[in-house]
């Protein structure tokens, strides 16, 4: 399913994050796939997803500047593609 920033998401249940100086490493225990969250803000966004009704509200809450919204949405779409984040029912 395509990534839809109008919908609610969450960090996938099988994914764990490990803080690192650049942001975090994300590991999916099901697919055994590692991903990087390349900035601390992206870590805040990924962990904040489940507290908001949609992705836009999550980006607002994490203080993502307007000019970077596109880049963040693209990064989240990629994370959704690899199963690092998933739609919330």
């Amino acid at each position, binding site marked *: 399913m395509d990534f839809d920033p109008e919908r609610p998401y969450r960090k996938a249940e099988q994914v*764990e994050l*490990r*803080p*690192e*100086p*650049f942001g975090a*490493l*994300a*590991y999916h*225990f099901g697919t*055994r*796939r*590692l*991903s*990087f*969250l*390349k900035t601390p803000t*992206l870590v805040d966004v990924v962990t904040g997803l489940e507290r908001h009704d949609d992705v836009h509200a999550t980006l607002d809450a994490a203080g993502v500047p307007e000019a970077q919204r596109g880049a963040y949405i693209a*990064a989240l779409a*990629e*994370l959704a593609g*690899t199963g*690092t984040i998933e739609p919330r029912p």
Partner: protein
Amino acid sequence: MKLTEHFQYGLDAPICLTWELTYACNLACVHCLSSSGRRDPDELSTAECKAVIDELARMQVFYVNIGGGEPTVRSDFWEIVEYAVGHHVGVKFSTNGIKLTPERAAWLAGTDYVDVQISLDGATADVNDEVRGPGSYDTAIAAMRNLHDAGFGEFKISVVMTRHNVDQLDDFKAIADRFGAQLRITRLRPSGRGADTWHELRPTAAQQRRLYDWLVARGESVLTGDSFFHLSAYGEALPGLNLCGAGRVVCLIDPVGDVYACPFAIHEEFLAGNVRSDGGFVHVWRDSELFADLRRPQHGGACTSCGYYDSCQGGCMAAKFFTGLPLDGPDPECVRGFGEQALAGVDGASVPRSEVDHSRTGKQGPVPVSIGMGPPDRACDESPLAGMRAG
């Protein structure tokens, strides 16, 4: 800072941690990187292994590559695996297949967070058994069949590339496809008993080129543990990090608890500490002087002027070290031929050897390719980026 630069400076915990549980092995592969054979009396006990796992869990090491020797010959092996996955430390273990009975395969198929890697160094019994020992091909194939029949899913078949099997690449892929497995090929390095056989077993220059082309055509469908980044100097970079991860994102815990910078670097020069010491593994990883050194920017030496340095980085530290080449120069298998030139100038007597040798055949000295009993295998995805995606 680019992400790869963060990797150079090291991470809070390793991404690619290999843990060799025993030096004991039922085989005696002629290229064994850890010169395994006999058990070491000082190997970590079950309780000590569990303490290491507790530590890895606290450090959030997501998974560990378990190898040996042949790890499954430890009588507490399955207990250790269960303990690890129970503490949320995933396990990928490398085996020659000796203990992978149908019952065990069924157990594995029903256990989460476990991945299995079967070593195979020839797509035919003659090529495989020459290196890994008589009967080892049949053992490996039987293990694969058991995993397949048990519905394990996609396990790995791990092949060390030699002069005798590069031409079998398509056959290896076919074997993997037959068992629903994923093919992983890695580089032969002059480590352990590999030091004695490297010169005769390593692929020729023409084979290296063919291997590179084959990999480029397969993209990410074949795993390499990032072990061929020195071939990137042929042109397009191969998928992966293109960086020696030793001590930065890669390391080895050996059966007696010694921590080395890389599984292919078992030598006191690359020994950072021991998990039994105060502070344990976490202290060694974060504070050892050796690792601090390896995390400083490295000098390319003679390679700096090479146009391919960005992707090749002068190749593999262990390969240079165990062939007597300077660490800040070209890889012995430099695709531009500088390694061959450098090798020609090396005085054999000055080439460093590992003191750590548990070979059953007795001491260091060439192990004739024809005798083999069987070999162990390599465990680590040296590549910190294996399977990773930028996100």
